[in-house]
């Protein structure tokens, strides 16, 4: 252990880029990235579940606005959405004099809003697809056994749809992690922001970006394994026993 730390100190002393200070940037960036992604995913999930149910409604005036919303947010780049919300807020006449500015001055919040709106759109469509794919026979059985619509939704449709949606939702989580890199564009010091800072200071693109790429790769694998584990546990029922 001592040897290891000695080796590590030597390594750090040997290079002029990865000092304790720059590693600190990366550390703070990691925290910001995880916060941003985690918060937008959790809030997004809470909003997307009821929306995905309403998206399948028979009533046009309920499903059309939701369809329009998901179409727009899935059809345009997240960067544009971020710009619209960020600049849209910053340039509102007189906003800087109101109490709201205390919150909105931080670019973190416009970014959180943009990311949340974006993931809600994707998640809604993922769940909507999974709900639609519920076996007709299973729904019929639920009806035949006297289940009301809400009971059927709660006990049969949603539990099986959530399990089916798991792989696609795992992809969405990874997608959000990667998409969050653009937060650095509105001056947020996330992981990518830290890397850009280090690059700008030392003009060392390989060191700065390869290091951050490796960090993202680790995060991606962590998410991947988490979802594999969940799938193994929750999709066991779909595997025929041989």
């Amino acid at each position, binding site marked *: 252990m001592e040897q290891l730390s000695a080796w590590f100190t030597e390594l750090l002393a040997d290079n002029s880029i990865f000092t304790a200070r720059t590693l600190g940037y990366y550390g703070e960036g990691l925290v910001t990235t995880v916060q941003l992604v985690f918060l937008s995913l959790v809030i997004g999930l809470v909003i997307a579940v009821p929306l995905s149910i309403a998206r399948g409604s028979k009533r046009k005036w309920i499903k059309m606005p939701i369809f329009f919303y998901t179409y727009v947010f899935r059809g345009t780049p997240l960067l544009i959405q971020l710009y619209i919300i960020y600049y849209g807020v910053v340039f509102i006449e007189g906003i800087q004099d109101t109490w709201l500015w205390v919150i909105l001055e931080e670019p973190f919040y416009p970014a959180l809003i943009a990311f949340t709106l974006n993931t809600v759109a994707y998640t809604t469509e993922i769940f909507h697809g999974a709900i639609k794919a519920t*076996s007709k026979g299973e729904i*019929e059985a639920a009806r*035949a*056994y006297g289940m009301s619509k809400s*009971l059927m939704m709660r006990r*049969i449709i949603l539990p099986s749809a959530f399990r089916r949606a798991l792989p696609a939702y795992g992809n969405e989580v990874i997608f959000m992690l990667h998409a969050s890199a653009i937060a650095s564009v509105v001056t947020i010091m996330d992981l990518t922001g830290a890397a850009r800072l280090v690059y700008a200071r030392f003009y060392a693109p390989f060191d700065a970006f390869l290091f951050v790429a490796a960090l993202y790769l680790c995060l991606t694998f962590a998410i991947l394994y988490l979802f594999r584990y969940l799938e193994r546990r929750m999709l*066991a*029922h779909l595997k025929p*026993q041989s």
Partner: protein
Amino acid sequence: MVDTPLPLEVRNLKKRFGSNEVLKGLSLQAHQGDVITLIGASGSGKSTFLRCMNLLEQPNEGELIVHGETIRFKETRHGREPADWQQVVNMRAKLSMVFQNFNLWAHMTLLENVIEAPVHVLKKPRKEAIEHGRALLDRVGLLERADYYPMQMSGGQQQRGAIARALAMDPEVMLFDEPTSALDPELVGDVLKVMRDLAKEGRTMIVVTHEMAFAKDVSSQVMYLHQGMVEEAGPPAEVLGNPRSERLKQFLAPKH
């Protein structure tokens, strides 16, 4: 005798899909302990008739009386609909259905399938439902499969499990929609045996089937449907043993 209400009575039921009338006024009376088999070629309307009985399909005309209670309908823009869905829900809980493709809920184990509706629809205490459910699984020979998921079982096991699920509702009448048609021939026997036992203990059953031996041995009444009408009906010895119409004779003729 006259005072006990019939478990199920259907009067003059008609069903149209667009301009195509598939059921042209069918009636049926199921007494306690009756086993009524519906036979006929595909397209004769026998499955649709069965599905109309618990309103998985909405009949356009006709009366449905379950245990003396007449189901109320109302006219809407989209055609006739049940006036009171709560009444339908109660009715469905009394008529439990077994499907051709089993339709077990794939995300639940077999035992969870069996107790689902008793606990959440009939509001039975969970513990009681589990006890009852396990007894029923034992009856159909699947107790050791209680914690398996449907996809992990053979078709015959799934169908026997589905019968246990139907029994768990303590139904007035059991509806069987071609319960053996989706099974491999060697698995049909086990399912039919369970159904024979049910008939023996006096269950009221309405069965759509192609199994003529079952119809002959077990039913109290056989109805032969052709193009949405009853062509012949009566005790099996009469209808199957001595068919009057040419069509039924052909239908019953052994196929090679």
